[in-house]
């Protein structure tokens, strides 16, 4: 069954969407979208390093994203620059280093478009295993730190005072975010990963009224975006990443309709 590249992409994509749902909600709640962006830009550096030293791509991307996240924390303590400036600094410099390194690796044939925007042809059976096993691990860890993470998202002091150890769960959350980026880089591409984290969660926010509901809807709309996006990508021969994100955007626009109706009703 997994012989067909399209089926492989579909199975891996659905796995990614399931993991991206709850993490995406947290990214939205914590206003970390630019942080996610920084991690995904640095992912390109991870990929080039993987090629240079023939490492596993997901592993190398995970390590680089985690290092960038730690770097950010230590820079925040050392400089007086605001968080968003530091994020911009790290995002663009890691992206630039990644692109420069690609120039040096001229002996390897690179599909730059594939790295930046995703390539469904690149998804192997091993990748499916990686997505589902890695994804399950991420979700299990998330389940165990959920209470702490969630309470710290609402109010850090309250969470700390009531023994939730938010500093620990915050750190783990950063690693999980790096993990989901590592898992999805092949399919979605370095530039668009944050889109798959953010847009389904944004759709969910429009039409849900409890945290649990928001997570479930984020997962479902993520799956729908992946499935429809991949079919579109096959039909009209476009890159997989952008196709998925465009579908997600269309769903987002549709999700505005109930909000609009509700607003009109309240005016009457």
């Amino acid at each position, binding site marked *: 069954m997994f012989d067909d590249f399209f089926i492989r992409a579909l199975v891996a994509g659905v796995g990614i969407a399931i993991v991206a749902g709850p993490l995406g909600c947290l990214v939205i*709640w914590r206003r970390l979208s630019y942080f996610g962006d920084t991690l995904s830009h640095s992912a390109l550096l991870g990929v080039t390093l993987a090629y240079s030293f023939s490492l596993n791509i997901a592993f190398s991307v995970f390590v680089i994203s985690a290092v960038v996240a730690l770097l950010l924390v230590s820079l925040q303590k050392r400089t007086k620059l605001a968080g968003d400036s530091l994020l911009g600094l790290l995002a663009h410099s890691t992206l630039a280093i990644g692109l420069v390194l690609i120039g040096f690796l001229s002996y390897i044939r690179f599909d730059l478009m594939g790295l930046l925007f995703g390539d469904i042809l690149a998804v192997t059976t091993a990748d499916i295993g990686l997505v589902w096993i890695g994804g399950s691990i991420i979700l299990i860890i998330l389940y165990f730190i959920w209470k702490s993470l*969630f309470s710290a998202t*609402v*109010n850090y002091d309250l969470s700390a005072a009531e023994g939730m150890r938010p500093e620990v769960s915050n750190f783990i959350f950063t690693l999980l975010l790096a993990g989901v980026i590592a898992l999805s880089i092949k399919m979605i591409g370095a530039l668009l990963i944050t889109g798959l984290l953010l847009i389904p969660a944004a759709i969910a926010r429009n039409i849900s*009224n409890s945290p649990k509901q928001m997570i479930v809807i984020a997962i479902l709309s993520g799956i729908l975006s992946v499935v429809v996006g991949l079919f579109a990508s096959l039909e009209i021969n476009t890159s997989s990443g952008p196709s998925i994100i465009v579908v997600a955007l269309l769903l987002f626009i549709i999700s505005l309709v109930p909000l609009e109706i509700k607003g009109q009703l309240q005016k009457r």
Partner: protein
Amino acid sequence: MNENNNLLVRLKDCGVQKSSKWIVKGISLEIHKGKIVTLIGPNGSGKTTTAKMALNILKSDEGSIENYSTKMAYVPQKISIDWTMPLRVLDFMNLTSHINKDEIIEALELTEVQHLIYNEIHNLSGGEFQRVLIARAIAKKPDLLVLDEPVQGVDFNGEIALYNLIKEICTKLNCGILLISHDLHFVMSATDHVICLNGHICCSGSPKSIVKNSSYIELFGEHNAATLSLYQHEHDHSHQTDGSVKN
């Protein structure tokens, strides 16, 4: 181990330093079960910082903190919840521990906001939210309750009822309470130990002794101090529910 079973928190010469400036220094205090300790003082005098040390949120840069509490509950001073999170009162009540629904409703009834249980947090008014915050802390049944200006934004009648509730909870749960309040009337009439802060401890003691203290008078002005000691004089007895003097 703690030699006194009622001791919950002991701060000994504690202080917090931020960019080489002391926010508070030389803070010593004890919180015991069933007692209310209040912190009073002008803005920026380090009340919240002191409370955060007692709660283990902030580390003390000097001295020592002993904390024997097994379950702390906190009502922070300012809390703004992002509109990006769809959070109902019910979800908020369960934030740091799982509490069954009957107990949640019971706690919300105490602060008179049980009808808001399915409302989204960001649709509540300031006073309503404050009541939910207090209910959440009570529902946890803590042994140490820290309240940082808990009645801000609450209407006048509600304020009195909530202060009475806090007093009641203290006895009912036999928990220690650390309260930050600007309501000197409540502080002087209902609490066991008052600490007057201004970057350091200006004076501390029972409400009766504190109103006569010169540094208290200096901090709060002659006029206030006078009214309150008068108030204290009037109320050094307490009333039965029918109004007769309790002895």
